[in-house]
Structure formats: C-alpha cells, structure tokens
C-alpha cells in the first residue's frame, strides 16, 4: 500500500505577504496521491487550490509568498521542498507536469508551437532537436490535432481554444511525467469542447500511466474524472474521501451545502438550497472553523480552532467537530 504512494503532501502551509497583511492561502493541507490515480481538489475561488498546486512545484512568487517550515511535499519519498532551484527544474515538466486554466494565455504568443514543444523535450529527454521534433509531431497527433506537421509550425493565435488546450496537454505529457497537475483545465472552454478535453485526458491517463491532480470548482467534472476528492475552503482541507463517499454520503456541512446548492441536470427542484453569507476574507481570519459563520450546525466549540482532519475510515477524513464521536469509535475498531 505505502509503495503505491506517489506524492505525499503533509502540513503544507503557504502564505503571501501583502500590504494589508498576511494571507494564509494554504493552511495545513495534507493528502496523498497514489500512482495512476486521479485526485480531485474541489474549491471555490480563494480556497487555495491553485496555490496548493503551485506549492507542490515550488512556483510560489518569491517576493511575497513563502512555504512555511514544517511543510513537506514528497514525490516517491523524496522531499521536494528541500531541493535546490536547479534540481527543481529537473522535476518540473519531467516528473510533475502541469496544465493551466486558460489556453488562450498559457502559450507564448511569439513562439511557434514547434519551438515551445521542442524546447521542453530537448530540456528533459536529452535528445537532439530533430528527434524532439518528430516526438512533438507524434504527440500532437496523439492529442487529436489534425495535420500535426502543418500545425506545429503555426503560432498559438492561429489555433482555437480547444486546440491550444490540446497542445498544452501534449507539452505536459511529452516527457512522460509521473504526476500531472491539471488546474481547472476546462473552465475556460465551452461544454462541448470540455467534453472533448476530459475525454482526451481520460484516454491518455491510461496510456501514459500518470497520476492526476485535477483542480476544479466544478463538482460535475470531479464526479466524472476523480477517484478521490479533497474539498478545500478558505485555505483549509475540510473533507477527503473517495468519490462515492463524497457524493453519496458527504459529511462536512460545507460539502453537503455545496452539493445541494448546485442546480442539477438530472433532477427538478423548485428551489435551491443556499449557503448563506459570503466566502470569508483571508485577511481577516475567522476564529475557529473557517466555515463556522456560514454553517447551520455551528456550535460554541466551533469557535476554538480549526478541527483536525478526523479519520472516519481508511479513506475518509473530515475536519468537523460533529464527527468527533464517530472518529473515536472508528479509531477503537
């Protein structure tokens, strides 16, 4: 079981210093990703899901952001946070690749597709330009770009959004990474194109045997793709579980509320459940549980501190005092 762990993130804390104060963008997040598995990280804007992925790659803005001591990110048992910048450069793109949200802006507008693909392959695979180019053409064909020989000579602005996202996927997978982080890979795309891209990711995942961290705000997308799900809110992990458990038996009041507040294609409801209030401002830390102010079950004890992630079973953890008793019982078993 332990050998199967590809990535282990523990007690990750990332902060940004701004003129108004310190923003604890990611506050004590722990999770693991197993080989070949898809972990979905779900959260709204400001939940810290993107910062988590950038922290794993150590790509936090240097001038105002930092990963606090005590955080740990281990890839196959190797601690990444202690690595030098040069060593990290060999990890990025090679071991851990990333797909960004907006295909319109993530390709360099002044370079051809060829240049952007070849430079990555040459950088990591130590092969000549010619070999790299033919590898690049092959990858373009694999991600479903018609006429790859012609397309590779084009500039990003000559491709549609869906095509660009395919190119980005091809770049990400071209060095056979062990882990692929996809940060909102389909948010900027139309539904029919989103379906194409998700379909492509599903197919390629088996082919290259990479694990995926899929970051999204769309519960539908994780239901479609993920094996495990981590629910984040205001920089905290509130719940972790298998996909089935999260959708069938959500435990945290936030997860419950979130699922109930989404209009569903498969149901008719007169009125949506709504979580009152607004997403908290991270500059003004909430006392106690981050969800307390919007929670229907909030009690006095919730004002103390953020509850630990309580293990309810092997694969289910929740950060909520409601489950204290249950957690104790499961620990006894």
């Amino acid at each position: 079981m332990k050998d199967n762990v590809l990535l282990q993130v523990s007690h990750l804390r990332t902060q940004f210093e701004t003129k108004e104060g310190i923003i604890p963008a990611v506050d004590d997040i722990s999770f693991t990703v197993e080989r070949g598995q898809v972990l979905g990280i779900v959260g709204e804007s400001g939940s810290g899901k993107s910062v988590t992925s950038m922290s794993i790659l150590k790509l936090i803005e240097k001038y105002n952001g930092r990963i606090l001591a005590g955080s740990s990110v281990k890839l196959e048992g190797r601690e990444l946070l202690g690595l030098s910048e040069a060593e990290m450069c060999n990890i990025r793109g090679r071991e851990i690749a990333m797909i960004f949200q907006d295909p319109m802006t993530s390709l360099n507008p002044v370079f051809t597709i060829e240049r952007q693909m070849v430079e990555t392959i040459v950088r990591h695979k130590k092969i000549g330009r010619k070999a790299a180019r033919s590898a690049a053409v092959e990858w373009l064909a694999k991600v479903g770009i018609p006429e790859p020989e012609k397309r590779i000579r084009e500039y990003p602005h000559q491709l549609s959004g869906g095509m660009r996202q395919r190119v980005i996927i091809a770049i990400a997978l071209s060095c056979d990474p062990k882990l692929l982080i996809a940060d909102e890979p389909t948010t900027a795309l139309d539904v029919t194109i989103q379906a194409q891209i998700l379909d492509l990711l599903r197919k390629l995942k088996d082919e290259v045997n990479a694990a995926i961290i899929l970051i999204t705000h769309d519960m539908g997308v994780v239901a479609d793709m993920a094996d495990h799900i981590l629910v984040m809110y205001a920089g905290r992990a509130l719940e972790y579980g298998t996909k089935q458990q999260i959708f069938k038996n959500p435990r945290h009041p936030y997860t419950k509320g979130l699922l109930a507040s989404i209009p569903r294609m498969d149901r008719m409801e007169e009125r949506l459940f709504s979580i009152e209030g607004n997403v908290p401002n991270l500059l003004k830390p909430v006392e106690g549980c981050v969800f307390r102010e919007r929670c229907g079950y909030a009690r006095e004890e919730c004002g103390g501190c953020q509850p630990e992630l309580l293990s309810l079973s092997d694969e289910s953890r929740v950060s909520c005092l409601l489950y204290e008793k249950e957690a104790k019982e499961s620990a006894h078993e």
Partner: protein
Amino acid sequence: MNDSNALLAVQNVKKYFKGTKGCYVKAVDDVSFSVTKGETLGLVGESGCGKSTLGRTVLNLVNATEGGVIYEGRDILKLPQREMRMLRKKLQMVFQNPYSSLNPRMTVLEAVRAPLDIFGIGTKEERFERSRDILRYVGLDEYQMYRYPHEFSGGQRQRIVIARAIISEPDFVVCDEPVSALDVSVRAQVLNLMQDIQKERGVAYLFISHDLSVVKHISDRIAVMYLGKIVEISPKEALYDRPGHPYTQALLSAIPIPDTDIVRERIILKGDLPSPMDPPAGCRFHTRCRFATEECRMKEPEMRFDESGHGVACHRWKE
C-alpha cells in the same frame, strides 16, 4: 406558438457585424421567438453563438440589421431614440460581470437610484425611499447604501445590479450570464432571489447562459442557439426529456453531473465551432453532426413545431 398573450415578440431579427475583408459576422441570423408575461425563457449556447448579441439586440442596445421586436403593439427597433429611451423603464438588463457593471465612482444608492433619476420618477424623498426599500429587499443593510461597489463581494454586487434593474418595475429583464462570474456557493442565493422577484412582481426574464444546468433550473422554456440561429426551442421538460436537435443532445450529454451513479452515453462532438464569419452552408451544424446527410449539407432546415410548442430546426426531426 401563440403570440396572443406574448409580452414581447422577436421577429426575424438579424445582426451582422462588419468583419475584416468585407465579410460579415452573422452574430444573430434570422431569429424569432416570443416571451410571455412572467415567464423565464432560457437562452443557451456556447461562446460565440451570438446569445449575448441577441440579448442586446432585443433591447435595442445594438442596432439590429433586420427584423423587429414587438412590445405593447409597437416595433421597438423602429422607435425614435427618445421614445426608446423612455421605454427602457420597462425593459431592463442584468449583466454578467458584477465587477464591471457598476460605476466605481457612484455609491450603491446612486447606482440603484439612477433609473429613477433618469426617468424623473417621484420626488427626491420618494426616490430615496424606494431605493432604500429595494436594497433592503435584495438583502443589503441601510448602512451599506453609501458605500462604493468595490467594498462589496461579487454576490452582493450582483444583488445591487438586480436591484437597479427592477427598481423601475420593468416587465422584462434580459439577464446575460448573471451567475457565471459568481462562486458556486453564492450562485444559489442569486438564483433564488431572481425567482422570488419573478414570483412577486411577475417580471419576465430572458435568461442567457452557457450553463445548461442553471438554465434548466430557472427557466420555463429554453431556446438553444448555435452559430447565430435558434436550433431548438421548447418547454423545459420536453427539451430535457426528448431533445430533438442533435446539437441539443450533445450539449446535454456533455454536461458532467455531480453524481457518481448516473452513467450516460456521451456524445462527443468532433471539431471546433466554425467561424461565424463563414458559417457552413445548409444546416450550420452539419460539420459536427453525427447524422449529417447530403440534404443537411445542401438545405437549411426550417424550424418546425409540434402541438406542445416544441420546435426543432432539423431535417431528421419527426414531431
């Protein structure tokens, strides 16, 4: 379609933009529909299909190339500017981006009161009271009235925008992607507010969105747009139970459902949206359609309706 109790009837509206090299972008191409009093008509489509342009054309915010919009027995697209301006009291709009749809230099009170100021409704005190009441109604406290938009969250701003749209008691509001820019947990609040308003004030919405699940939740009827044309229009149950157009079918099946039990057959459309500058001949969808035949490539399908008012523009569809 029975136009007898229609609040607003859109008839053969076209909007062409001048593109490069003398080409025309046919953003809206010969679209007709009507909206009855107090109903919500959902308008869905992917980006670039012309749904936002259609919404603006209906309100005469962009000049239509052709066609008419009949409201209270008059074609509002042909009204003189002055009369059109006065009519805007009854025809309002809610915008997509709550961060850019409020003037950053005006307080919330001024923003919401603006329509009353413009139309000169009531005395100064009355206007103030009405603005205060409506802001309370959408859930803002009185002490927040003198604040500027940047001090509010996205959800609160969208409430303010809605308050501004309904303060002049319109019959019809075009809502252009009103919840797309909002966080998931805040969307439900705004959607519920919009439903409450409709119930209490009987206002009709044209609800434009790319999100089929949201449209389904709020609409009574739904129109699906593809490349400047409405390809299917129907009461919502019929549309979701028996989608007639292959595009609607693909669109419906493409939406991921937040549930793990439902296994559906997925229809994955091939290729990208063709350019609206140079739409395919015949049926505009034939380049991506699974069922396309020679007829589809040659002849453009007419919209046909069954007796329940379910209309589909596809050669294959049997009513």
